[in-house]
């Protein structure tokens, strides 16, 4: 066992602690009315997985349709609805809440040594809002779908489609408030609930990343809410704010929409970066290289992320001067991401690295996110943007960041904290296999799309010229593998709930406060208020703790 750090308690005697947050109360109502952040996190985890697989099924349909150049599997109309719902569900009901609402919800109070989030009822409300939005989205699909694209571009969405734009808009609006409340809750919690000794620069980087993402959620989401209200009113009452025939400017909608939706990509990726900081430190047994730089780069991404939204509109008729300014700012926002990548890389330097599943996902994240980030620069430079925007290059770029980055980080996090959440380990070999399958499937799916994009294949096409078929076939084949890669964790993680090995408090020998309590934790998280007397990622402190305990046991014996 020299190539692993996993230390599990003696399986013959180990038991899951009788009293924990899962067993404290029973019955469906004790879940639906819970104020416990950990239970809400589990509720989120279940619902998010559900929406992920709906979105994934839609993605599967898209890839199947694109297997052939003609629109033969479904009519173009249906295809449009499928990709719209894929976008809406994946973005608003999976990516935005994924890490924050599950892992963030579960871990932030534990990491800062609090008993719960500051506003438990608001936290529950935000889950209900999420579900209400999700049900509306499903209702939209059931009642004929919507075909505006997830961007709701006016005047298409206001005057030229007669599908369920209103219910979709309401779904997004409601989900938006869910995300606002989550972000608000995190900010208040991080400010007001830290345990004694938990200073800002002792916070795990996971918390820093969530803090930055929360700022974005709170400040950006309301703007998309008002933009959607305006679209809804324009559809129903015919006010003319975005209608060019009445003197409105359709581009104004895009300004308001991207004012949220660009920071939204940072809402999606920042928490993922937080996960990576935790895993990479734990599995290389080292403090994160340049802790302060990583922490501040999160905040820098959040702040600069606000000033770049118009790079989605370079060719759409905004002024050329604005193009210059926004292009320059976009280049600036790319730098903090580069800083992070290099800091993570150098965290490995002189570490003592092991390759458990979360670490494999982490490596996957670093490779794919680097590609995703660098291709973002292609699009941020105004010249190449002309050729590449609105093609599959864009599709590939944001899937590399969102799926290759965020989803990899999400899976890394789920695998990393699964023992803490459930008290049990998953089977290591098969989970490593799943990580590798996901990585291969992902690259096969999305790498060809970069080439398709450079060749000029437009996005959102149900049919395409035949010479693009071969790359599309590769992509569809990759999607199949990717699908397997995503199904596997669901299977073995579910299996592990009953049959997994008992994990003990700290299977990875990690330093975070969340690992110093039992797994699964108590409802109050800690038996007594923890006092933080060391830096984050202090492995020497952990060693000392262990030694002390051993000495205690020895002297007692």
């Amino acid at each position, binding site marked *: 066992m020299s190539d692993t750090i996993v230390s599990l308690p003696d399986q013959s005697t180990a038991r899951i602690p009788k009293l924990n947050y899962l067993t404290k109360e029973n019955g469906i109502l004790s879940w639906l009315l819970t104020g416990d952040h950990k239970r809400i996190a589990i509720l989120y985890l279940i619902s998010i997985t559900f929406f992920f697989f709906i979105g994934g099924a839609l993605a599967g349909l898209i890839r199947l349709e694109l297997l052939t150049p003609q629109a033969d599997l479904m009519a173009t109309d249906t295809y449009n609805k499928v990709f719209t719902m894929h976008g809406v569900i994946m973005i608003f009901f999976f990516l935005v809440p994924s890490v924050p609402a599950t892992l963030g919800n579960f871990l932030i109070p534990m990491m800062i040594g609090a008993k719960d989030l500051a506003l438990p009822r608001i936290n529950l409300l935000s889950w209900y809002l999420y579900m209400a939005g999700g049900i509306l989205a499903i209702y939209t699909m059931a009642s004929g779908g919507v075909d505006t694209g997830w961007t709701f571009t006016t005047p298409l969405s206001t005057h030229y489609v007669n599908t369920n734009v209103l219910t979709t808009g309401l779904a997004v609006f409601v989900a938006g408030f869910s995300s606002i409340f989550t972000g608000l809750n995190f900010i208040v919690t991080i*400010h*007001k*609930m*830290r345990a004694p000794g938990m200073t800002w620069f002792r916070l795990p980087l996971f918390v820093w990343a969530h803090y930055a993402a929360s*700022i974005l959620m709170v*400040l950006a989401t309301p*703007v998309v809410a008002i933009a959607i209200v305006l679209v809804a009113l324009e559809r129903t009452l015919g006010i003319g704010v975005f209608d060019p025939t009445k003197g409105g*400017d359709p581009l*104004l909608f895009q*300004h308001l929409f991207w*004012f949220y939706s660009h920071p939204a990509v940072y809402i999606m990726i920042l928490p993922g970066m937080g996960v990576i900081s935790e895993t990479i430190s734990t599995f290389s047994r080292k403090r994160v290289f340049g802790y302060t730089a990583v922490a501040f780069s999160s905040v820098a991404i959040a702040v600069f992320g*606000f*000033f770049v939204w*118009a790079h989605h509109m370079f060719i759409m008729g*905004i*002024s*050329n*001067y*604005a193009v210059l*300014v926004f292009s320059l700012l976009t280049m600036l926002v790319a730098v903090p991401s580069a800083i992070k990548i290099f800091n993570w890389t150098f965290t490995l330097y002189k570490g003592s690295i092991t390759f458990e599943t979360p670490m494999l996902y982490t490596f996957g994240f670093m490779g794919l996110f680097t590609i995703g980030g660098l291709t973002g620069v292609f699009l941020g430079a105004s010249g190449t943007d002309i050729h590449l925007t609105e093609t599959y290059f864009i599709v590939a770029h944001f899937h590399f960041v969102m799926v290759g980055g965020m989803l990899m980080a999400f899976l890394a996090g789920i695998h990393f904290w699964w023992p803490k959440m459930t008290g049990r380990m998953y089977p290591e070999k098969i989970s490593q296999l799943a990580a590798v399958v996901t990585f291969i499937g992902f690259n096969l799916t999305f790498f060809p799309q970069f080439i398709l994009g450079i060749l000029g294949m437009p996005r959102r096409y149900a049919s395409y010229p035949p010479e693009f078929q071969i790359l599309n076939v590769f992509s569809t084949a990759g999607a199949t593998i990717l699908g397997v890669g995503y199904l596997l964790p669901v299977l073995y993680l579910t299996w592990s709930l009953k049959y997994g090995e008992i994990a003990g408090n700290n299977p990875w020998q990690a330093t975070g406060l969340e690992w110093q309590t039992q797994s699964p934790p108590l409802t109050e998280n800690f038996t007594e208020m923890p006092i933080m007397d060391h830096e984050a990622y202090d492995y020497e402190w952990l060693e000392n703790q262990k030694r002390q305990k051993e000495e205690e046991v020895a002297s007692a014996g």
Partner: protein
Amino acid sequence: MSGSNEHAHHIVSPRVYVVILIALLIGTALTVWASFIDLGPWNPVIALAIATTKAMLVVLFFMHVWYSTKLTKLAIGAGIFMFLTLISLTLADYISRAWGNW
């Protein structure tokens, strides 16, 4: 935990509230009066300046920000800053569009 001792529970005396109320009413009268005088481009400037003063009075005293922590002030500052960013960067596009191509 916000450390400072000048914390959120400072009780503002009613006298302050009355003074602020009077100031707000005077401000309202003033801004309406100013709007009846033709000051050319200065009309909007004065109206907005008075509105901002009034809003500041409400925020600082009715909403107790004068007595609250730096954190609250920072949060409000961030909100206003983002609001101004939204307006100024969007307007920057619209204004420079009229300059034509180069």
